[in-house]
């Protein structure tokens, strides 16, 4: 006889609300008149996220490993990561709500009369909102999942909507679709690797739960454990775009509609790093001598490669893509550190980096000419003269990426490097600061282009953002500024929440 699994709905409420919102969004898309859809969809998304946030706040002191039959752990770090995802998504959804970035009818062939018709009739489909909510739901599940199957499901739930969203750009549609296809194919490989690794781990430990794998350490042939760890890592490192699994990142960041790039760059990183941290801190902590060298080398390669290749980029979105690769390398030092400081630092880093990224991509979406967004850096020349405020904010965000003191990026870097140093990975710290020095070059080069070069006669200008974008960019920027000046506000929280239930 089958017994119904016992679920503690109260602890899972945040995720359920987001998934519920996504399903409701699908229904709205099917049954509501076109004219009201956009407003209703936005309300549902924002409402679901706000409710989810409220639920997370309610359960902030609770914890349980049996909330969903041992496959989900509600614990301090998990709640922090979920809250980070939801907050970032709340800011991102306001960017996404500016629909003129998206193709009106995704099913129409690029350049076809169908598409032109849809454009003329302004019949914008709004499937982005439910897709977005599904992705957010997956991102919330990923860092709290405690067995390999749930991890895989969460990975797919967050990835599949993203593959679609990446292909929905209104302008340069072919580029966008190519990016989406590339993302999908490579992502599918990565998922397969993940599954393959999961199978090995099951073979090794006889269980799919992370704590079970940890407990089984030393009982069987470690080769299988190592193979399992390596293959699972491939799947995860792909998601955070670590070298050598990074090659999709620049293409997808460039091709995807800018609000989606913003969302993806900020939230996927949080979710994927959340999962990596849990897997390595909980599942593989015993076997650290096996994987630490591998991840250390990956981190070093990622930092150096990302920083160096970014220098040669001539497109702002591609440049930030390589910068995000470099940041993935810095974040990996928090994984290698494998101590409480490393976890706390990673939590702070993800939060701070997420908001800086959102604000930066938000601003990129504002720089346009008559044909749409302009991401060619050469055409950004002299922007500081035309719109000093926007250029100034963007320069500040770049300095934060570079990790100049008094920005949130600096505190984050300091925290994560000191955790790595504490764990004895001094080489990682030295390479990290050198890579930061290299990285500083290309951030500052952009500042030079914006401020110190005279504008050439060009039609690029900063459009007046809609109220929604303005709110979104302002909030993200303010958070970046505040975290730079008074990081204690969040650092203490990250410290308190840096705890995984085993």
């Amino acid at each position: 006889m089958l017994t119904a699994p016992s679920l503690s709905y109260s602890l899972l409420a945040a995720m359920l609300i987001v998934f519920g919102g996504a399903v409701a969004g699908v229904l709205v898309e099917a049954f509501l008149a076109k004219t009201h859809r956009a407003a209703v969809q936005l309300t549902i998304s924002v409402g679901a996220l706000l409710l989810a946030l409220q639920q997370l706040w309610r359960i902030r002191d609770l914890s349980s490993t049996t909330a969903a039959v041992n496959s989900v752990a509600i614990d301090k770090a998990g709640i922090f990561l979920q809250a980070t995802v939801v907050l970032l998504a709340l800011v991102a959804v306001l960017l996404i709500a500016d629909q003129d970035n998206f193709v009106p009818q995704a099913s129409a062939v690029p350049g076809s009369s169908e598409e032109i018709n849809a454009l003329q009739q302004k019949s914008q489909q709004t499937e982005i909102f439910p897709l977005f909510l599904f992705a957010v739901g997956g991102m919330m599940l990923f860092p709290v999942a405690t067995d390999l199957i749930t991890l895989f499901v969460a990975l797919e739930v967050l990835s599949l909507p993203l593959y679609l969203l990446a292909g929905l750009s209104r302008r340069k549609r072919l580029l966008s679709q190519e990016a989406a296809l590339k993302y999908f194919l490579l992502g599918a490989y990565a998922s397969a690797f993940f599954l393959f690794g999961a199978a090995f781990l099951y073979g090794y430990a006889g269980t799919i739960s992370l704590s079970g794998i940890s407990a089984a350490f030393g009982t069987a042939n470690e080769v299988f454990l190592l193979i399992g760890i390596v293959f699972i890592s491939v799947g995860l490192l792909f998601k955070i775009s670590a070298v050598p699994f990074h090659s999709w990142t620049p293409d997808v960041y460039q091709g995807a509609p800018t609000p989606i790039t913003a969302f993806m760059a900020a939230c996927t990183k949080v979710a994927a790093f959340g999962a990596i941290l849990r897997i390595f801190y909980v599942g593989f902590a015993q076997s650290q001598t096996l994987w630490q060298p591998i991840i250390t080398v990956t981190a070093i390669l990622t930092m150096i490669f990302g920083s160096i290749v970014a220098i040669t980029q001539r497109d702002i979105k591609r440049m930030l893509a390589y910068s995000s690769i470099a940041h993935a390398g810095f974040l990996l030092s928090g994984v290698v550190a494998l101590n409480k400081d490393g976890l706390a630092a990673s939590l702070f880093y993800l939060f701070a980096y997420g908001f800086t990224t959102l604000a930066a991509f938000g601003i990129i979406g504002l720089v346009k000419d008559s044909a749409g967004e302009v991401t060619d850096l050469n055409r950004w020349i002299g922007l500081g003269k035309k719109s000093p405020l926007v250029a100034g904010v963007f320069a500040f965000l770049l300095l934060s990426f570079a990790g100049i003191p008094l920005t949130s990026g600096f505190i984050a870097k300091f925290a994560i490097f000191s955790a790595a140093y504490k764990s004895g990975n001094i080489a990682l710290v030295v390479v990290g600061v050198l890579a930061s020095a290299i990285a500083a070059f290309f951030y500052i080069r952009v500042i030079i282009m914006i401020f110190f070069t005279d504008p050439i006669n060009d039609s690029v200008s900063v459009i007046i953002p809609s109220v929604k974008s303005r709110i979104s960019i302002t909030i993200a920027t303010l958070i970046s500024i505040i975290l730079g000046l008074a990081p204690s506000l969040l650092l203490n929280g990250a410290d308190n929440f840096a705890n995984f239930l085993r």
Partner: protein
Amino acid sequence: MSLLTVIGVLPLIGAIILAVVPSKSSELIKRFALGVTLIVAVLSILLAIGFNKADTKMQYVQSNSWISSFNINYAVGIDGISLVLILLATILLPIVVLAIWNESDAGRWGVKSFYVLILALETLMIGVFAATDLFLFYVFFEAMLIPIYFLIGGYGSGNRSAAAIKFLLYSLFGGLLMLASIIGIYVISGNQIGATFDLAQLTTLEIDNQTENFLFLGFFIAFAIKAPLWPFHTWLPDAAKSATPGTSVLLLGVLDKVGTYGMIRFCIELFPDASKTFTPVIITLAVISIIYGAFMAIGQSDIKGLIAFTSISHFGFITMGIFAMTSQGMSGANLYMVNHGFSTAALFLIAGWMMTRRGSSTISDFGGLQRVTPVMAWTFFIAGLSGLALPGLSSFVSEFLVLVGTYTRYPVAAVIGTLGIVLAALYILIPVQKVLHGPTTPGNENLKDLNIREKIAIAPVILVIVIMGFYPKPVLDLINPTSAQVVTNAGFTDPIAQVSK
């Protein structure tokens, strides 16, 4: 709240007021900036009056928690060494503001941003010398780069954006190496006495030799780039050539002192054993700087380049004095920092006036200025003589102290260093002769002499140069106790008894 904090925050408040209050009148903006810097200068003199010279401990201390999870505090305090450098900064600033009254008009972003940057920079300069928390120091040290970067890139001339980025990248690279060392010493303190950034506590750490050497190098390279010491100097001539004279004064006169100050405060105080290990190398680099800077200066055809390379030579003297590890050397180096600040200020400001009048910075374009513009010529002459350390002018005392202090421990280095003085006569007197004396070259006949504003600005600088040459005692009284303390703490004793002054 300590008076030190008030002095530090005041320029920042001024900068914010300037940035927020809309005003189109550039004259008003300039007066406001002058007013703020004057108030700060007066307050800092009060600070010096209230300072207890005999006490070698930190004074005017204040400590508030800033980032509690890393035990980072807003902790400030001053001893003799930092006090004179703060005085140097706060006194030079109103002079610079007054001297460069029209310098910002042609800049990229207008007058207002210029003074906002200058005032913000003053806060950071005071902060960097006052910080007694290592992390706080680092924040000021790095944040300082941003206003200077914009001042060079936005208001300079020539290939300014390339010079600005070169300056920034060199400094950032050094700063990040230092960050690795800071993280290192922070973690070590966590293992031994509880994680802290407090300088006094960090000096008590027991660090094994190899680690100490690496940590020392992280700090030293950052400061050697800043100071700048050969072979880390290549950014300086470019920056000095591109920056406006006012920015150059702040850059060479004050900001670069952070490098030599850092060598004393951090390299020697935190890592005395490593300092001992590296002293021969550093003394060698310093001697090379002295000679190299001097020779390069002789070969310069550009006035700004000339002053930049003389500074590299002078920074060689300062570094040599610091790492001679004698109390005279240390006092001399500290005094040299102040004197170099004033004589560079005089040289750059007058050279700046000469260049705006003539529209050229090439030495050979000038000639016979003594006849046309006597006041400008004579002030330049005095500033130049101070640069070559003529007895009776301020630099002589400090150069003498450095050489005496070095001779007792490293006679060879001191003797080669003395050669630098001979070369100084060449690199100063040849251009002085070309520019000031001889027949008036075509194009210079109608140059105007200094106006009343410029005279008021330069008078205090010349006065300081002359007075400090004859009567350096007030400043030495501030410096000596702390300098001797630093040398003693580092585990050195003077080879001979200290001379009385």
